């Protein structure tokens, strides 16, 4: 996932799987960094952060789109551009909760 954030934040999402490049201007992004949820706004200090699997939410005005992302990195540049690169990003509405629970049980069994 590769996001550009520009004042107001612009983002481009890129995933390894689909290479969706979406550049859009957003107000805020909440990133599941390893240190916890990190909110990124325009004018954020330049940062490189690694993130753990979690929920990424994109706030555009009053709309919020949420994605589940596997691990990756976010680079926040000084000019309010942010690049988010992950291996996988799935919009939350495409995730079936029951299926996930079932798979979780299966895999935990396989691991132990």
């Amino acid at each position, binding site marked *: 996932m590769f996001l550009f954030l520009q004042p107001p934040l612009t983002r481009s999402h890129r995933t390894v799987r689909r290479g969706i490049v979406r550049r859009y201007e957003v107000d805020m992004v909440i990133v599941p960094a390893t*240190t916890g949820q990190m909110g990124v706004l325009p004018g954020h200090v330049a940062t490189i952060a*690694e993130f753990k699997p979690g929920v990424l939410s994109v706030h555009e005005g009053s709309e919020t789109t949420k994605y589940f992302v596997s691990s*990756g990195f976010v*680079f926040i540049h000084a000019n309010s551009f942010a690049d988010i*690169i992950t*291996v996988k990003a799935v919009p939350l509405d495409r995730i079936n909760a029951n299926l996930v629970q079932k798979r979780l049980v299966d895999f935990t069994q396989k691991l132990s």
Partner: protein
Amino acid sequence: MAMAALRREGRRFAPMISPRPITALRSSPLAPSLEDECPIGVRYISTQVVRNRMKSVKNIQKITKAMKMVAASKLRAIQTKAENSRGLWQPFTALLGDLPSANVKKNVVVTISSDKGLCGGINSTSVKISKGFHKLNSGPEKETKYVILGEKAKAQLVRDSKKDIELIITELQKNPLNYTQVSVLADEILKNVEYDALRIVFNKFHSVVSFVPTVSTVLSPEIVEREAESGGKLGDLDSYEVEGGETKGEILQNLAEFQFSCVMFNAVLENACSEQGARMSAMDSSSRNAGDMLDRLTLTYNRTRQASITTELIEIISGASALEG
């Protein structure tokens, strides 16, 4: 005696004259009729050899045409994937830069090539560039090692650089290329090979007819630090705060590994596209050559056939006139 004269004539020129004028019209082929293949005493004009050649050339043309179609369809399938994966390494390059000129002690050249042949010269160009890099970077204190992906580069590099090869990986495309596979590969390479800089040599796919050999450089975190301190392109790296519980070094390490796997993924896809494109154009020129050859052979065939008919006629007529006279 007319026959004897003709026979003598026949011996002087290449096509031999058949001694059985009655079967003339059937033009039975028995012995080779090409210039250098006529054994003494055999006198037939035979179109068999030419016909055999025409048949085989026609088959070759069909096969190469089919291969071109197959390559075209495979190209379509992976081209979208390759173009999508281009976005992956761009943010890394924007942040860390791609410094082919970085002067390091331990270079590792990752050469990406195909497993199958008949794809034109792309593998040779990759190997040439890898060897060039090796030469450029060899000297006191500097060393270059190879990691080879694909049979074709292996065949070429094993011959003279066997001691410099660290890892050989083949049969990459047995399953359709995906990121998991490439990340496992990248992991293997990073684990087993010590490096200061990784140079990935592959053919970048610009269009169906143009594939440009490219080198992508991934630097190890220590070298990144060194370059950042010395200023230049990476000078801004220090201005980035590194978020995270771990030290900056660890985060940079993870970053370098992630960068390597992303760049590898893109490189492998681009090389696969270039391979299919090169195969398409190689097979296309091959079928065109086969077509030309077929035309030339058809002309020879017709000439030979007409010559044999003419000589048969001559024999008949001279035989008939000899009978009368």
